[in-house]
């Protein structure tokens, strides 16, 4: 195996283990209790280490998953029998031990327990930061430093969030189950999944593989919501998944080799993933089943309109504009209006878009925002009003705090400054 193949295989293996990690931790937590979730994680770490050792010596077993689950189960039974855990009721452990001994792992059980873990990690008593950290650590098998990387912070900070989150679970006596008021909790789970996805989608992420993994994990978690029977109202779950699939479909075309962003008009659409676009469309269809609309549905449809356009010029901008108008009915905000202005400029002309941005600026403090000026600069550029373009690009540059954004804006500025 040459060097790059080896690296690819290792990454695939890490990915596999990462996913299985979350599944097994969830199942084991069911038997040893939320109070002992850290022990569940330790058990799974030990299992995976054993797997690497054993499989390298003896080859990969016929059913790798089953091998992992059986090993984890046996380690857990040992621990239960030796009563080394924080216990609330002795009888509870006794019962759990018997059930675990007889447990046959099935896809259904694994899905169910992961769903419970999602609700547990997203319990409303836990702060948002801790929710995301818990999900990434427990369900998605990310290491602390990978999570720290994803959120531009230190290992200590992430560790604190995990510790706090676990403490909140204990203090609030959160039990491992699907909550009765499922809809409120579901909204938090969905938001967390989407925040996860956004982190992966964010081009400021250093490690490309972590970014892709974050997006894939978010989509995997959304699929758990969809396949589970305990959730009756799935409309928003389908819409959320569709949104992520449409956005992810453009993933490979969005990045240059030097990790800079390729704007949509320059993206090579051949690289857009047709399978994801297909899947997104099917899920979008499913999201129409009830008489409800959500921001996810509208954003997904906007993204879909980009995805099905043969070229940037062929994009159905009036459809997108109309969708933004619908979105404004749900919420009228400067951020939405700013994004809508781009569609407006394409559908109705730059002058109208410029006027719209001027009016948003008067009514809010979005003028403090670099993106506002970058957008305005783009409209002026299309109108060949280069003095204004330069003015607003410079303003955007002065307001930007992010190195990558800065690089991109400076590149744009150089492109319009006349050569003296």
């Amino acid at each position, binding site marked *: 195996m040459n060097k790059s193949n080896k690296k690819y295989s290792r990454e695939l293996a890490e990915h596999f283990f990462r996913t299985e990690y979350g599944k097994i931790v969830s199942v084991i937590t069911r038997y040893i209790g939320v109070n002992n979730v850290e022990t569940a994680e330790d058990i799974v770490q030990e299992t995976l280490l054993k797997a690497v050792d054993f499989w390298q010596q003896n080859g*990969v077993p016929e059913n790798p998953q089953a091998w992992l689950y059986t090993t984890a189960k046996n380690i857990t039974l040992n621990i239960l029998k030796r009563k080394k855990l924080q216990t609330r009721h002795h009888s509870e452990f006794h019962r759990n031990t018997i059930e675990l001994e007889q447990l046959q792992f099935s896809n259904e059980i694994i899905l169910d327990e992961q769903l419970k873990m999602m609700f547990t990690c997203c319990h409303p008593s836990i702060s948002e930061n801790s929710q995301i950290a818990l999900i990434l650590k427990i369900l998605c098998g990310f290491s602390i430093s990978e999570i720290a990387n994803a959120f531009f912070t230190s290992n200590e900070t992430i560790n604190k969030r995990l510790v706090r989150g676990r403490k909140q679970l204990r203090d609030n006596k959160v039990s491992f189950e699907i909550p009765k008021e499922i809809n409120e909790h579901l909204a938090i789970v969905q*938001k967390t999944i989407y925040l996860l996805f956004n982190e992966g989608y964010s081009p400021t992420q250093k490690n490309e593989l972590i970014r892709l993994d974050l997006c894939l994990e978010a989509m995997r978690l959304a699929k758990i919501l969809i396949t589970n029977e305990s959730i009756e109202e799935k409309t928003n779950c389908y819409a959320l998944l569709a949104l992520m699939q449409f956005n992810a479909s453009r993933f490979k075309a969005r990045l240059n080799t030097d990790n800079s962003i390729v704007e949509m008009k320059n993206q090579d659409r051949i690289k857009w993933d047709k399978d994801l676009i297909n899947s997104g469309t099917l899920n979008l269809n499913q999201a129409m089943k009830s008489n409800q609309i959500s921001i996810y549905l509208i954003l997904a449809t906007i993204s879909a309109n980009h995805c099905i356009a043969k070229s940037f010029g062929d994009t159905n901008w009036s459809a997108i504009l109309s969708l933004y108008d619908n979105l404004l009915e749900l919420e009228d905000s400067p951020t939405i209006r700013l*994004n809508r202005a781009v569609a407006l400029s394409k559908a109705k002309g730059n002058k109208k878009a410029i006027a719209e941005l001027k009016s948003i600026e008067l009514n809010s403090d979005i003028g403090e925002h670099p993106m506002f000026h970058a957008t305005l600069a783009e409209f002026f550029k299309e109108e060949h009003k280069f003095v204004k373009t330069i003015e607003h690009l410079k303003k955007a540059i002065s307001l930007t705090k992010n190195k990558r954004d800065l690089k991109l804006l400076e590149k*744009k500025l150089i492109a319009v400054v006349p050569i003296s």
Partner: protein
Amino acid sequence: MKEFMLFIRSEEKPKANLSPEQLQQHIEKVGGFIKRLTDEGRMKSAQPLEMEGRILSYQNGKIVDGPYNETKEVISGYYHLLAKDLEEAIEITKEDPRFEEGIWRVEVRPVKIVEGIN
């Protein structure tokens, strides 16, 4: 580890392969659906107001990022925002008169909040 790799790679493929025309049709259909519901002013919701999510892309002077394609990809890719704690944002929303009974309700709230950028 070869079989192992094959095992990992077998992921589910979508059940149907839609043609460009079919894709177009589907997307237009959803667009029409959204427009109809918005126009009719009807958003049936089973939950009481307090339980629903909110869209927070702008609250009382704090601009919060959102998952919008246009400024993220069409213009110049992306931007990060300094934003406040989500819990505080929720408290502010509860005071907002727009979210009283009978006004448009939003089912879910995707909000991207990022810690202070170094």
